[in-house]
């Protein structure tokens, strides 16, 4: 099997540095500037928030097991609904996929010793825990925000003012964190690659993070603007979104979706990056269509900025706008499809190893295609007008978010856990986790499409008894998903302490992070590596002379 072959360039030898060799456990609770510590901080906190958000979901599904309101009061249901969505998006998927994997992997993948701005990086992380605490506080100071993760006015301005204010502040904090993080990712990838690595020799995860960061930079400030205006409306007597005083609620929707549609790509682009790393390693084949995958990330980033109105087809939107945004929405599906086909082609004829990481990656492929297709149906305005604000939409976004983003994060954890901790996760337990997750996802989220088409509205605690059967099925699925995380968390905790030693490169992978110890030493390498082959040169003759897309490398790179 091809082993990464990294030669040493003596001129790059570093002198002794004044750091300890290893971080102690308590270093992880401090303002530490090492990108690996920060990555782990992001991952661990987001996995904790995942449990909190999941707990809320289980409570909501328990309420929805019967048509009547008999378990949670409607206000509490709304508060869980709002905070479930907010936590899952802003404190789980975004910090895990972008902050966690991005910070941990990027310097290791490009041969840097740290991110460009380590202190800024630590600051970006430390905005997250207080943001989470604010959300928790909002439950005790007025029962939690009530108006959904979208917080449309007028509802958000007439319900639960103090919790809603805290909610706005939370979003401004996580938004700032995400902007600062993106500045760091862009500058790091741009300027800190080892001198021997050209743009087209970068692992695809880094390309995905470039696209993610650009999106975050352009979209997040607009959300911040919306939050500021909402905050002023609620607390300082302005009337931006108050129609009776000349304001306009649809303006909020535009600002919100200008961020929040790109936000769905913030949540999936890093996952696409993870897919492009995991699949070639476990299929033992070079990635199919390196450039196609890299550029399609950038295309998604660009087109993704011009589709936001597909969330507003029923907001009195003018017909010409509906047509324009239907077309642009359907266009985004093209670069997404290119990626799907590239991954399938990479699998094709590969020597596939059915590791848990690979199972989640392949599971993601099937789930995401389903979710993408329901997305395309929603993108067509005539159909969307029919099912907007029904469970069909809930089914769609859970397929892409759970079957896409969450599967991808799991896959990434199974793949990089050995690098991060130096120990292997238990594979049989991982497979139990996968099977439970896969079955749970299908049972939970598929019937939602039927419910939606039959007319069940979303965001309700009580519903017409005719929907009871399918809702019970959904609730059963939700319990399976709740159970599915038990083997996972157990596996992680147990393996972190007692798992099998991994060694530097347990998967025989070819990207740079596998050329250093597991876990990597504090500044990543004693001697910076020099790139001698592309990131995906698997199973090729003279692999060390072949570039990522299979073409030979020019002998000297700047």
């Amino acid at each position, binding site marked *: 099997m091809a082993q990464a072959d990294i030669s040493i360039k003596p001129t790059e030898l570093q002198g002794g540095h004044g750091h300890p060799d290893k971080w102690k456990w308590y270093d992880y609770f401090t303002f530490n500037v090492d990108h690996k510590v920060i990555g782990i901080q992001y991952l661990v906190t987001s996995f904790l928030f995942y449990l909190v958000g999941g707990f809320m979901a289980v409570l909501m599904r328990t309420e929805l097991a019967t048509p009547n309101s008999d378990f949670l009061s409607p206000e509490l249901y709304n508060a869980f609904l709002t905070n479930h969505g907010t936590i899952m998006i802003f404190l789980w998927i975004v910090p895990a996929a972008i902050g966690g994997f991005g910070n941990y992997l990027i310097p290791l993948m490009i041969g840097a010793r740290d991110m460009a701005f380590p202190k800024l990086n630590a600051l970006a992380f430390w905005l997250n825990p207080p943001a989470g605490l604010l959300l928790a506080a909002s439950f005790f100071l007025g029962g939690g925000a009530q108006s959904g993760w979208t917080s449309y006015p007028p509802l958000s301005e007439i319900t639960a003012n103090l919790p809603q204010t805290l909610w706005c502040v939370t979003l401004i904090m996580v938004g700032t964190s995400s902007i600062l993080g993106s500045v760091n990712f862009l500058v790091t990838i741009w300027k800190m690659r080892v001198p021997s690595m050209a743009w087209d020799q970068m692992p695809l995860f880094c390309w995905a993070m470039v696209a993610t960061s650009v999106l975050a930079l352009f979209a997040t400030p607009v959300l911040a603007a919306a939050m500021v205006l909402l905050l002023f409306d609620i607390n300082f007597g*302005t009337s931006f979104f108050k129609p009776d005083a000349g304001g306009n609620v649809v303006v909020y929707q535009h600002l919100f979706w200008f961020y929040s549609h790109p936000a769905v790509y913030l949540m999936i682009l890093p996952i696409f990056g993870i897919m492009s790393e995991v699949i070639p390693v476990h299929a033992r084949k070079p990635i199919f269509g390196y450039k196609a995958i890299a550029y399609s990330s950038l295309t998604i980033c660009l087109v993704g900025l011009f589709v936001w109105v597909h969330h507003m087809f029923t907001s009195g939107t003018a017909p010409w706008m509906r047509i324009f945004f239907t077309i642009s929405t359907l266009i985004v599906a093209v670069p997404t499809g290119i990626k799907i086909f590239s991954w399938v082609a990479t699998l094709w004829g590969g020597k596939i190893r059915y590791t848990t990481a690979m199972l989640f990656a392949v599971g993601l492929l099937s789930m995401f295609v389903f979710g993408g297709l329901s997305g395309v149906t929603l993108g067509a305005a005539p159909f969307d007008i029919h099912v907007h604000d029904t469970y069909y939409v809930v089914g769609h976004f859970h397929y892409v978010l759970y079957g896409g983003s969450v599967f991808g994060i799991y896959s990434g954890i199974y793949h990089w856990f050995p690098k991060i901790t130096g120990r292997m996760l238990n594979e049989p337990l991982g497979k139990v986790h996968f099977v439970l997750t896969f079955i749970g996802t299908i049972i939970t989220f598929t019937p939602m499409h039927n419910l939606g088409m039959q007319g069940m509205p979303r965001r309700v605690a009580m519903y017409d008894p005719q929907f009871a059967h399918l809702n019970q099925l959904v609730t059963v699925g939700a319990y399976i998903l709740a159970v599915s995380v038990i083997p996972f968390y157990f596996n992680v905790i147990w393996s972190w302490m007692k798992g099998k030693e991994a060694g530097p490169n347990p998967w025989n992978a070819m990207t740079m992070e596998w050329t250093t110890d597991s876990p990597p030493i504090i500044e990543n390498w004693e001697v910076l590596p020099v790139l001698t082959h592309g990131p995906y040169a698997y199973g090729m003759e003279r692999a060390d002379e072949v570039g990522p897309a299979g073409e030979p490398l020019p002998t000297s790179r700047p």
Partner: protein
Amino acid sequence: MQGTVDSTPVVTGHEVAAHEEHQDLRVLGLITFLASEFLMFAGFFAVFLVFRGSHVQWPPEETEVELLLPAVNTLILVSSSWVINLGTKAIKKNDLAGMRKWFGITAAMGAIFLAGQVYEYMNLGYGLKTNLFSNCFYLTTGFHGAHVFIGLVLILGVLWRSRRANHYNDITHTGPEMAEIYWHFVDVVWIVLFSLIYLLTLI
């Protein structure tokens, strides 16, 4: 300080290159950040334009804007962008005294701008809550004013640090450079703001 990689003694040619790069990176980081920051203002401007387009009379009768004072203020802020540039040019020629002089003048101009803004607020006769126009007016100019204030703090910070001998010279001057870039940013935002909120009322 935000470093690239190492605290090791600089030895080889490659290391020297890396060291200079690290100076640039902070400038690059700031520009990236400001590009993002600009979009927040773009959001406010877009909201303003939507409201302007959907109201028959904009600004409504009792909330007209003052023009003379803001125009003078604009002149001050725009020319201060040129003054601060003289400052960084000076330090690039290792002229510390020159830099301190020009930065001092810029700070004074910024302070005058802010004072003018406060004076304008006090004499307008309407407040944040009066109507939709005044909402937009105070929010946008207020946010910009806060950015001017931050820029002022940055400039004063540079002046404060420049007391130390050889802290800034013709080779290391990232601090003044970043203050300058930030100041230009504040200036550009103001030009857009002034055109939209003040000049458009003339049409």
